[in-house]
């Protein structure tokens, strides 16, 4: 691609990969947590709720720092993951982890709002027709929260595309490995005369995110229209 240099190109591809996986992998957890928060009463509910929101409240640098402590090569969780064959420290996987963690509260909130809007009487109807709880969730709740799921996913994706502070703190700014678009933008801004290059990358990220947004609007509207019946 002529317009983007090879490094920029690789930053773009990396960002896409990071954002995609961050969104995809965190989605099931987000759905589960959102469902639990919306529908169950359990001790420690507030604590879970608080934990979920933590990445939003903390300065990203702190989140990154905590991730570094927990998931670094020396960190306890990092060790666990490494045993499972997943190395996150200073890898793109770590960038995805950081982006996923940062985007998690947004996703959970969107999904939770949607779940709370589902009429429990429809879920009851499902149960009355013989569907066990899990099947009620899959056949009634899940399809009905699709618009919220899409909204949550696009929020998460956008956030993941733009995440900077936690990523650079956690996995550093290594070109080709952890240098996502925002980090590349940041690097360009550090260099005198780097603004045009930075602007180019900003435009690229906007383009990608807008594409995702348009797509999600389309999907979300269709899902909503299905339910509204129009």
């Amino acid at each position, binding site marked *: 691609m002529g317009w983007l240099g090879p490094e920029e190109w690789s930053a773009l591809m990396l960002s896409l990969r990071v954002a995609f996986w961050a969104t995809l992998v965190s989605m099931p957890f987000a759905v589960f947590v959102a469902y639990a928060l919306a529908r169950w009463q359990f001790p420690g509910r507030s604590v879970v709720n608080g934990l979920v929101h933590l990445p939003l409240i903390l300065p990203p640098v702190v989140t990154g720092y905590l991730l570094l402590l927990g998931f670094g090569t020396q960190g306890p969780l990092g060790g666990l993951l490494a045993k499972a064959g997943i190395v996150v420290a200073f890898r793109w996987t770590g960038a995805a982890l950081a982006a996923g963690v940062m985007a998690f509260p947004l996703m959970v909130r969107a999904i939770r709002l949607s779940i709370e809007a589902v009429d429990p009487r429809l879920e009851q109807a499902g149960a009355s027709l*013989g569907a066990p709880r899990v099947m009620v969730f899959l056949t009634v709740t899940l399809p009905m929260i699709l618009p919220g799921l899409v909204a949550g996913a696009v929020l998460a994706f956008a956030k993941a595309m733009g995440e900077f502070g936690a990523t650079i703190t956690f996995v550093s700014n290594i070109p080709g490995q952890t240098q996502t678009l925002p980090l590349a933008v940041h690097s360009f801004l550090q260099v005198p005369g780097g603004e045009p290059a930075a602007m180019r990358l900003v435009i690229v990220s906007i383009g990608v995110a807008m594409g995702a947004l348009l797509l999600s609007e389309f999907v979300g509207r269709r899902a909503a229209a299905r339910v509204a*019946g129009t």
Partner: protein
Amino acid sequence: MTLSVRVSHRLPGMDIKVAFDAPPGVTVLFGRSGSGKTTIVNAVAGLLKPDAGRVAVDDWVLFDTEKGHWLPPYRRRLGYIFQEGRLFPHLTVSQNLSYGSWFAPRGARRENRGKVIEMLGIGHLLDRRPALLSGGEKQRVAIGRALLASPRLILADEPLAALDDARKAEILPYFERLRDEVSVPILYVTHSAAEVARLATSVVALQSGQVERHGPAAEVLSDPSVAPAGVRAVGAVLQARVHTHHPDGLTELEAGGDRLFLPRIPHREGESVRVRIAAQEVMLADREPQGLSALNVLKGTVLAIRSGEGPGAIVSVQTRAGMVLARITRRSAEALGLREGMECYAVVKTVAIAPEDIGGHVIEGSK
């Protein structure tokens, strides 16, 4: 299969406390708006956990708070027709109809989908989503969804409320068939006298969350002091056989040697049918009427005269066709000098017997 229900539940503003054992067939819950019908049905369905109680179909216990037993709703194998439809908005009509069958056990008896769809007249709607249906169409889909779920217990909360008479007349026989042939216990909520009269094996009349009266349909319906569906629901059921279809559009029935004329009914000649004759459609005469437009005149003897508080009295007359009830004014009863054992004639207009009052099969306690 006996449905045994014992539920007590405290709601803000009202205490529900009912207990009844219903024989096989259709148990109609009857009562004014707000008397607790839906609450009881919900408890049977498991959508409401009552403070205390026990519900069982024979020895299949749905729940028993005393023993801490609670079958989750999805294991109760219900066909619940909700008062407010509750169709799945994201599924097409066809998918809504299939929903229950996705979870029915392999061996379960299945209703014939095509037949149900035809009976409900929703064949042209299969690809639509519920939001695009009319009120009555929604209700019909909801009925279909419940019937096609291979239920072992049907709960129907005013299933026909939004439907026109013609449509009702098409759907009622299906419930009869479920009652008579398939013997699925049915708990049925309705305000309609015609439906009570037609379907009910036993009736539970509720008032402010309490059972006011409970018993076999024939008994409750012929008791003017309760007359849960309004006195208009009082009536008797005759067992008859289709004798001849006449070319002038009348069907002649034979019941215990007596003849009854009705507007044409769809049953084949020789088939046996149940005919409900509403008490208020019957006149009595002390001699054989002459020059009257009524074609059905049954000779009999007065069995009993019961009067309630109003101006009316219910007279039971034993005829060869069976027992007939007549609701007349007390004034007429006196004028005719009616008393037990007296011979009299029951006069029924031919057209007063409506098609929806004819059922195809025998039910227990209907004679």
